[in-house]
């Protein structure tokens, strides 16, 4: 799966977790999304792990400063 396929797959996951459509760009960060608080963050991560069939380490998670890094990490795990 490449970056754009991952980005496409992120769209419905974000919509489901944040209960609204989110324009997904690599630069998007938690502070850009009004409802991206601590609790929602945990649900987002567990949902991503479930849908992509991957498991993030704490080190991976603490590197995810934006959606671009998140996509890179997913891509690395899948390939």
């Amino acid at each position: 799966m490449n970056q754009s396929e991952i980005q496409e797959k992120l769209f419905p996951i974000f919509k489901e977790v944040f209960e609204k459509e989110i324009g997904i760009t690599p630069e998007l960060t938690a502070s850009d999304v009004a409802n991206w608080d601590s609790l929602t963050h945990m649900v987002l991560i567990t949902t991503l792990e479930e849908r992509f069939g991957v498991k993030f380490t704490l080190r991976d998670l603490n590197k995810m400063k934006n959606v671009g890094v998140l996509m890179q990490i997913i891509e690395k795990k899948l390939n």
Partner: protein
Amino acid sequence: MEFRKAKISDIPNLVKTIVEAEKSGTSILTYSTIMELDETQAHELITNVLSIEDLEPCELSLNSFFVAEENGEFAGACSMWLEGEGGVASAQVKSNALMQYLTIDVIRKMMGVRKISQSMQIVQEEGTLQVGVVFVSEAFRGRRLAASLINFTIQNSKSESLKIDKVQVQVFSCNTPAIKAYAKLGFKKKSEIRGMYNAQNYYPCTTKILMELNINKK
């Protein structure tokens, strides 16, 4: 009285520090109410997170803590960190760390209270020094120890990162002693947030105040 960086053997005292500071003089522990954990489970969770080696800065990172002790006896502790230092917001680091010890069921259940949690949220400003928790043991109260410890920690952080010019702390409005202590140190009220009515079932009180200290004017 000696002030120093916290170490692994301080963890039991730091758990007490976090629990008492979170309660803000009430009996409500947000870790318990939000995650539906009893106090023993909450203690265990906090212990696990504090034990993570080299966790990026957040309110539950061992590296963020300073301890006050007298003749080897624990007198108090406080935590401070430079917000966003690791490239990721401290709230996110904290969630990431907590997640390692929570089941998916607990995480999904917490979604039920997320609107309440969002209503109580003040985002931590990147580049500022954030005060997490402060606690002084009963036997050492009345000696302005909290103020000395906070001042020491601010000076220490400032010497490590010269660009720090603002210190921020979030306090519950019901925690009058803390608000008075911060005001005495020169902190000024910057803003406040009123949570949803039913936040009272989960938090010590429903109003949170953001106080700020400018340390470049000194």
